[in-house]
């Protein structure tokens, strides 16, 4: 699999796919998409990178351990559920806030942060499974 063409293309392909996964994640707000599918796309991007260039460059490029990313995602998701304690509403109620970024109104919500959490959980756990499989194959 480690042909010259693939190795040259893979980093660009990976970065494009990660970008696309973020797009899908944010698009999931009102249209098809969302954290799970976004996370899967990102995880497959890193899997491709791993197939092309080996596992250790992937681990280096992720910087954090995949399971730690997963844990952070779980934390984000859990906190966005627990935030409702402060507002006297049941667990996991969607809370909205309108902020203005450079004059553009942006709706922020706990739903979005929950989705980002899901994205990170899926990205972390699937990448760690994929890397474990690739490591076995080459090592």
């Amino acid at each position, binding site marked *: 699999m480690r042909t010259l063409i693939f190795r040259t293309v893979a980093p660009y392909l990976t970065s494009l796919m990660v970008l696309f996964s973020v797009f899908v994640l944010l698009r999931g707000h009102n249209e098809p998409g969302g954290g799970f599918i976004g996370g899967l796309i990102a995880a497959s991007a890193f899997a491709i990178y791993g197939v092309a260039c080996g596992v250790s460059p992937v681990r280096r490029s992720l910087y954090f351990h995949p399971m730690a990313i997963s844990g*952070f995602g779980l934390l984000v998701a859990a906190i966005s559920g627990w935030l409702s304690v402060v507002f006297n*509403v049941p667990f996991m109620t969607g809370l909205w806030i309108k902020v203005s970024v450079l004059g553009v109104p942006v709706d922020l919500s706990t739903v979005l942060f929950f989705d980002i959490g899901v994205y990170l959980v899926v990205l972390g756990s699937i990448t760690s499974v994929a890397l474990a499989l690739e490591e076995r194959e080459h090592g």
Partner: protein
Amino acid sequence: MAAESIDISNAMVTQPTTLGDWMLVAPVGVPILFGAILLMVRHETRLHASVAIAGLLLTLGANAALLLQVLADGPQVMTMGRWLPPFGISFTADVLGASLSFVAMLVASVCALYAMKDIGTTGRRYGFYPFVMLLMAGVGGSFLTGDIFNLYVWFEVFLISSFGLLILGSTERQLDGATKYAILNLVGTTLFLTATAYLYGTFGTLNMADIARKAEAMRETGPLMTLAVLYLLAFGMKAAAFPVNFWLPASYHTPRIVTAALFGGVLTKVGVYALLRVLVMLFPVERAELSGVIAWVAAGTMVLGIMGAIAQSDIRRVLGFVVISGVGVMLAGLALGTETGLTGTILYAFHSVLAMTALYLLAGVMKGLGGSYSLHELGGLYRSYPAMGAFALVLMLAAAGLPPASGLWPKVLLVRASLEAGWPWLSFAILLTGLLTTIALGRVYILAIWRDRQEVAPAGEAAIGRPGFGYTSLVLLCVPIILLGVYPEPFIRVAAAAAGGLLDSSSYIGAVFPVEAVQ
């Protein structure tokens, strides 16, 4: 937002949520939060144990508050995301769920304490403590959720964490055991999902309170018997009932002993809980029709299970079969379906969670001091460690159902209930199981503790170490076990309240659907 102009009281919960209501999600939310933090700091292995124990104790405290609240005011409900039930997922705690969850959190805390010395740095880096936290989140969610699909989700949450715990260490034996455990359990939960698909197709709702109140009207037209049989099979598989129990003896002796303790204590009881919840509360008429089948399954599970224990020479495998026979005893109460019988089952579940965890931990201490799990090699432990002999005696009496320990009263209740129901053979099976348990565990006691030290040198002389927190953990578990034996009144009262809540679901339904909301 247009929401201001819309009257949302028909679709959403409008009254504010008080802090007391949060006790309901704490047994799920707190372990998830702490598990997430532990996953992030996986390299700081020194912190793991203290963070995990703090999290579990916090959960235990919240759960105790929840149990007291439920005992005082009846079932508590919190519906996720403000959507009114049956549209939102309701967490519904009744006495059964809250008390079982409390006992489960108690043994999990003790196991976390035991693991401080037992699980080394490598095990922690593999994620022992995060997995325990996520496992307990799944278990707590299963006990407290009021939505049957959500129950499936929590089943899968604790299932996937249990996979992680099972292969901690990755020895050949573990991989072998874990493969069988994983595949058979996955098939079991998929069967559960199949049943839920039919249930949804039939009822058009997944909220358990909603199903309970609609079941009466559906009885003539809907395939409720099919549903009940499918659930019996699926949860029977989770609870390790004969003849779908073979995943348990294939895997429970392979992981680290503290993992086995947690699994043996808690996981099968979740299956029993689900059986009680679905068959007694949702499908009572179908359960009554199936009672003959369940009774035979119960008798088969308890007698054949304990016969398996007699044939084993590895203590952990003996205990695996003892777990199975305990499940059979609990199913006897499900087959009877009377208030006494169900009280006995629930009381037995409390006892079994405590006693099985304690027995596995005792096996861990025996291995630590005697150097082996094998009955061929152990010996002379009483002479060297009399305290352990005392613990072993208490726990073996508890498991066999002899006074002064916890196993006695649930068996008394179950025997009485089966005599009242006119099934003397079932009470014979329960008593026979008690006798065989005494033989199986009594032999362990005689061989491992009473007889002189064996000439065969145990394989790993270096493995002999200090018990660590073993004695502390055993004391923490033996106190409630003996309390249940000598002063059973409060425990029986809780179990009876739980059984009453199952048989008469009106307060459960009333908590989810308050009268003013029902038109």
